[in-house]
């Protein structure tokens, strides 16, 4: 599997057939917590792309030097390093966003996707493809988060990227028509939306086998 990976097949794999959230069901915590705001979600996604790609690259570059018994500890050190760098840079150059994201930036260290790719891919593959794998995993994660965030922000605030789209009803002024769904602002809504999305995607994959992970097995048999 690992040795035959091309850049394009890796991209397709991580964005769709083996999407970290929709298929592997990893990285759920931050999916539920930060997705009520598209701007914050985008920053979170980019932070994860950075952390996963660079830590996969580093783990891969050092893969022949890391003692087997402490490989996961070493991976955590490397992942923590890149995540804290992101946190420090956000604190210096995007402080308001960093305050809103709060602890969730630091929690990227515990995000299963990052560790999963380091352990499952970077440890057995060359640095360049590992870096790419980190980028594509992060993009697959970000795509799902942005989709959920679009729905939550639109229905919860009536805005997209902070720009008003639905006119929010103002009783005192007598303008607008849209009553925001407060539920969409709370993490509970993310549970429902993510579950619905998982259901939809899995149904599509099962109905059209060419779209799902089964396609690879079928392809191999031929």
């Amino acid at each position, binding site marked *: 599997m690992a040795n035959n990976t091309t850049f394009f097949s890796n991209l397709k794999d991580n964005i769709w057939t083996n999407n970290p959230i929709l298929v592997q069901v990893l990285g759920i915590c931050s999916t539920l917590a930060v997705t009520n705001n598209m701007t914050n979600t985008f920053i979170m996604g980019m932070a994860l792309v950075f952390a996963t790609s660079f830590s996969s690259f580093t783990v891969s570059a050092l893969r022949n030097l890391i003692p087997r*018994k402490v490989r996961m500890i070493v991976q955590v050190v*490397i992942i*923590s*390093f890149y995540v804290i*760098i992101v946190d*420090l*840079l956000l604190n210096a150059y995007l*402080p*308001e966003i960093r305050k809103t994201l709060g602890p969730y930036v630091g929690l990227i260290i515990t995000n299963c996707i990052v560790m999963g790719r380091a352990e499952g891919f970077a440890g057995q593959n060359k640095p360049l493809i590992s870096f790419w794998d980190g980028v594509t995993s992060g993009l697959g994660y970000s795509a799902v988060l942005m989709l959920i965030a679009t729905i939550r922000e639109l229905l919860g605030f009536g805005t997209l990227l902070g720009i008003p789209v639905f006119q929010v009803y103002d009783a005192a002024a007598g303008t607008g028509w849209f009553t925001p769904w407060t539920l969409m602002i*709370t993490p509970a809504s993310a549970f429902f939306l993510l579950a619905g999305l998982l259901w939809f995607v899995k149904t599509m994959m099962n109905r059209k086998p060419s779209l799902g992970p089964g396609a690879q097995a079928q392809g191999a048999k031929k």
Partner: protein
Amino acid sequence: MKDFKNSFVYTVIFVFVLAFFFVALLGLTREATADQVKANEEVSSKSSILKAFHIPFKKNDVADIQAQFQKYQVEVKYFQQAGAGYQPLTEAQVEALKAAKSGNFVTVYSAQIDGLKYWAKTFVGYGLWGAVPGVMAFNEDLTRLAGFEPYPGQHSETPGLGGRIEESWFKDQFKGEKVVGGRILVKKIGEGAAPDPKNKDDGIVDGITGATLTGDGMTRAVAAEIKTMKLILGVQ
């Protein structure tokens, strides 16, 4: 070679070198961004003070913020608790306290707006889920509030519920509102008709639906700050 890679000695040396290298890089990055972080904090706190005074300014524009501070003669005064009251401190005394990292002092700001003097002070209130820090502004004799500005994003109140204390409709109610019985009451929803927003003399402001406890916390915060300001300024 493979055996040596899995040996105890190699493992210890490898992990030590790795950790040392990465921690050193982190330390360097922190040092490199320290000045920017400090500048951000100063802009943030000065912005909140201007917002509490309802002085307009250009967001994140350091030069404009400084210009507004000068235009409205925003000054800083320091006080320290002494017995039942407070005594003023000089800049030198405050620097000494900061250097020694001992002793608490209170920072109070004053401004001249349209010929009238106003005060502002940072506060820490308590909402439903945790601390709510911010800045409150008062008129000269502490009979009315001039502004209420919780720091954005620095509280733990639920967004859409208690978090609505950050919204302008809520904050603006406090501007010019009279202090009645030593407090301004954030009215619970459902207890009678909503207070008239145009009536600034009843000492009552409209609460947030679904955030009664946060509103109660803000009522307590305002009452506590009025009391403290009276002690600091020696006003009855």
